[in-house]
């Protein structure tokens, strides 16, 4: 049941191993689902992303969305990690992991969390190309629409 916001990388394997043992199996779960997001190169256009956030609000928002997901889907545990600062192409930006007794709830909770994180967690991405900082990434209408299904 943790949300972390950090600039340093995280070890996805170690996070999932710890999560699976504790919030998963240790709490009676039979299913763990995880998602991790990576910095795409956009067909060679980007070398990195700069991610800005709202210190204080970000942590509160992630905690709140995690708790909402836990209640709604009956999770035995959840973990959210989201990075900020400059992230090179191929680096992990974030991860969510959810644990539940059965897989359907774990899958749905992971999608629910991702939909909320995309449009309601205070992060902003800026593209960095070979020549330096470029445009701020624009929010997609489809991400906003995805929230309406919940």
């Amino acid at each position, binding site marked *: 049941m943790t949300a972390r916001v950090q600039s340093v990388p995280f070890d996805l394997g170690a996070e999932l191993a710890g999560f699976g043992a504790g919030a998963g199996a240790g709490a009676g779960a039979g299913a763990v689902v995880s998602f991790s997001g990576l910095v795409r190169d956009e067909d060679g256009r980007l070398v990195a992303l700069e991610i800005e956030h709202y210190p204080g609000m970000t942590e509160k928002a992630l905690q709140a969305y995690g708790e909402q997901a836990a209640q709604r889907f009956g999770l035995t545990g959840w973990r959210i990690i989201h990075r900020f600062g400059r992230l090179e192409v191929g680096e992990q930006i974030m991860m969510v992991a959810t644990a539940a007794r059965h897989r359907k709830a774990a899958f749905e909770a992971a999608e629910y969390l991702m939909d909320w994180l*995309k449009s309601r967690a205070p992060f902003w991405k*800026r593209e960095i190309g070979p020549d330096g900082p470029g445009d*701020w990434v624009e*929010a997609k209408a489809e991400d906003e629409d995805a929230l309406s299904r919940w």
Partner: protein
Amino acid sequence: MALDVLYFAWLRERIGQPRERVETQARTVRELVAELAAMDEWHAAALADLTPVRIAVDQELADLDASLEGVREVAFFPPMTGG
């Protein structure tokens, strides 16, 4: 009352600073926006079209009609692009 006003992403760049402390009589976010926009041309330009502007009041998402009573911090930023 005194309020901390925060800006993020391109709003921060257009206004030219990440935060400022303002003395205001505004009762709602809408009234605060009007006061800020009257400060100088940068504020005016950044806040001219509020369609792409999102608002947080004391670190909770809010709208233009949100009350500022007892509030300490208001933030303006573009639509979020996390994940």
